[in-house]
């Protein structure tokens, strides 16, 4: 009896099928994928950044690596990846994927196919970033090396994290966020975009790293607006900021506004936006109200900051300019792309389900684009930094 039980136990463990034994030096760790489209042949061209290339043996001891990019072609994602596998002596491992970059063409055609493949792939971690290149080939972006980060893909990923903290231009949206937005009704996805500055060719050479000013660099750019899985276009900086402020994606943002002939700048910390929706006489009413605390970081004008009245007028000005930023974002989404990237539809779905379901099919084009959205901004400028007045004022 005991032996039978033991055999049964052993069989249970063997049958559960986790037989994926892989030595670490038998896998090629892919940290970034770039997906381009070859229009002539109508094939996907995938570039995979493999991060555990050893270069020289002296690197190995210190645990440093060089990256290698392998390109593969195919009508489907799987075929292209198989093509890469044929070129690599090691097994392609997607578990540590950090970033996937779509070229503009691929994104415009729709990313459903790719998303489907990645969702089915059991190895991948679903927490990588998705990016869209603006005007560039995705493979070129992957090739750019940075002296500040050992791995190009890490370079992009940490850039996104850092940029969402300090600039409201980039959105910290990973793959699972993107898929969730795509599947649930009432919201359209956005992604960050990426650009190359400087020289493409020299920036991909290791010799570029030896210069104090690298030949090329990658730069995160404005938001890419999607409708369903298809790219519609790119927002400009102001619009991107507006979108991020509305979506509460911005942790900190600097706002500049004119005073006299010069500028003054305030920094808003943790701005918080609430969207309230209601139906009045069967007409949708949307209110956005942004509250934030902030402080003045630059003062170019000759103003007496000790006077509470001045602060009041300054605050009004900043509020107006912030509202302008929000309105720019709203205008773009409503009029230019007709894509409900703010998730207003989802709010209606929760509060007024029957109303939303009636209009679900033409929500973006018919209802969202014609919504009247009221914007209210409430700022509280708390500190003026370490300086009471502007330097000019202090001098006099």
């Amino acid at each position: 009896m005991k032996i039978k039980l033991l055999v049964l136990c052993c069989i249970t463990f063997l049958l559960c099928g986790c037989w994926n034994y892989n030595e670490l030096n038998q896998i090629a760790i892919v940290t970034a994928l770039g997906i381009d489209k070859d229009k002539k042949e109508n094939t996907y061209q995938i570039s995979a950044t493999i991060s555990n290339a050893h270069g020289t043996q002296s690197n190995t001891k210190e645990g440093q690596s060089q990256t290698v990019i392998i390109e593969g072609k195919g009508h489907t994602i799987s075929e292209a990846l198989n093509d890469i596998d044929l070129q690599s002596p090691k097994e392609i491992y997607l578990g540590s994927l950090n970033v996937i970059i779509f070229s503009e063409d691929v994104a415009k055609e729709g990313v459903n196919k790719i998303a489907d493949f990645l969702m089915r792939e059991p190895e991948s971690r679903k927490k990588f970033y998705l990016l869209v290149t603006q005007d560039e080939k995705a493979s070129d972006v992957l090739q750019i090396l940075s002296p500040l980060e050992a791995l190009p893909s890490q370079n992009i990923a940490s850039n996104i994290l850092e940029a969402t903290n300090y600039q409201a231009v980039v959105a910290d949206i990973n793959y699972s966020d993107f898929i969730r937005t795509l599947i649930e009704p009432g919201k359209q996805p956005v992604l960050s975009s990426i650009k190359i500055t400087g020289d493409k060719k020299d920036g991909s050479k290791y010799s570029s790293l030896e210069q104090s000013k690298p030949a090329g660099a990658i730069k995160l750019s404005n938001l890419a607006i999607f409708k369903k899985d298809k790219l519609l276009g790119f927002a400009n900086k102001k619009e991107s900021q507006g979108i991020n402020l509305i979506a509460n994606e911005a942790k900190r943002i600097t706002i500049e506004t004119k005073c006299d002939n010069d500028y003054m700048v305030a920094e808003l910390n943790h701005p918080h936006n609430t969207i309230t929706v209601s139906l009045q006489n069967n007409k949708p009413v949307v209110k956005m109200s942004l509250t934030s605390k902030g402080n003045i970081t630059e003062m170019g004008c000759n103003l007496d900051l000790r006077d509470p009245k001045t602060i009041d007028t300054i605050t009004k000005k900043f509020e107006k300019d912030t509202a302008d930023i929000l309105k720019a974002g709203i205008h773009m989404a409503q009029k230019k792309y007709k894509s409900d990237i703010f998730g207003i539809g989802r709010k209606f779905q929760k509060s007024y389900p029957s109303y939303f379901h009636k209009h679900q099919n033409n929500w973006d084009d018919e209802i969202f684009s014609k919504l009247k959205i009221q914007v209210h901004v409430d700022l509280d400028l708390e500190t003026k930094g370490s300086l009471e007045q502007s330097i000019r004022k202090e001098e006099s």
Partner: protein
Amino acid sequence: MRGNVEQILKKIKNEVGHSSDFFSRILTLGNKKILYCFFESVSSDDKISNFFMKGITSDIRYQEDTFVEDLFFHLKNTIINSKLTLIEKPEDIYYYLSSGFTCIFVEGYQKVIAIETKAILDRSVSESSSEAIIRGPKDSFTENYMVNLGLIRKRIKDKNLRMDEVKLGKRTQTKIAISYIKDIADLEHVKMIQDRLNSIDIDGVIDSSYLAEFLSPNQHSSFPKIISTERPDLVCQSLLNGKICIFVENTPYVLILPALLVDFLQSPEDHYQKPSNVSFTRILRTMAFLITLLTPAIYIAVTTFNQEMIPDRLLISLAIQREFVPFPTAFEVLMLMIVFEMLRESDIRIPKITGTAISVVGALVLGDAAVNAGIISPIVVIIIAITSICGLLFTDVDFVNSLRFWRIFFVFCATILGIVGIVAGGIIFITKLASLECIGTPYLAPLSPFNAKANKDAIIRAPRNKLKTRSIFLTKKNNTRLGVKHHEN
């Protein structure tokens, strides 16, 4: 023994052979002959001269005629020796002789007078070498049985402290004391131990560990179920907790039973330091217990099956380090583990003078050369180093070696099935531990079966004024440790 002294001497010499350390002499006092004999190797000449020779030579010579008739009684009453014994059975003579007694035969008398003239063959009480502590009593047991009992008796001056003696070993005739406090310890347990000891028929007991194997015979487990210690303070703590201690002649290691798993995560010093600090130390030891058990297995599982569990950068770094290693990870880990165990073993056995050479070679060969040669990856050296360091936190040799066994077991589990294997191995490990018991006490107590009161001094230690009762797993009667009088202060 009957017959005249010459015959007796012949008989004894027949029995012990012509041992070079056997000394005998026949004296004539008046018209009576007496024979005295002893083993030179275990007897002290000084004592014999002082207690015996001086007496008979100064006293009896002048009163020959009056006392000769009653020489036996005269000797019995006048020899200045506190341990003077009369031996009735002839076969006992050899035990006494071997124990350092001098036997005196008086012609015509059947009984033999034995006087204690032991030579001091033991080292004095010194500091413990295998269980070092920073704060607390420094003395440790020696090979001298009576000294060991004395170290306890002077600490616990309670009339209820029992030291029941049993003699074991057909040839060694080793004295064994079962020590317990009568109104605390579970007397059924004492009875059980006595019965088990009495049922042993062995030729010799050289060390207390001989008995340890007999006391937990039915369960095969590498985990020790009996503590062996050379610290008297630990023995006293255990006695006061209701445990039972076994002293064996000629060994400084005293057995304490029952032992629980948590006992091996504790040190006697835990009771001499501040409770909060001790709790932290004990949690460290618990962590070290898990780390030393599981680290190599988890490393193998994670790097060969479940790579997705490693953060990206670490994964890349590990992959690069492994690039030129020609062996599978599991083999690499096992190889290094075995080399480390060999190094440890050699470190124990080697004379102290050459010991440094071993550590230099070990550190250089393992730490640097092997990595540079590309035979093993640096991370595996780190893994084995962490494992070994954590293993060194425990003082009990049996416990450390048993951890080694289970560590290799987990490595096999991980090699076959990865994380699933470790989980399966963990289930087997816990089941095994939970099934163990020592004289009726579950090995995992007080964690399982759980008891909140007993847990106040297990993985953590509560302040002393909160430790009011003894663990119910050790004793059910007389449970109060801390009285009201102390509490009110």
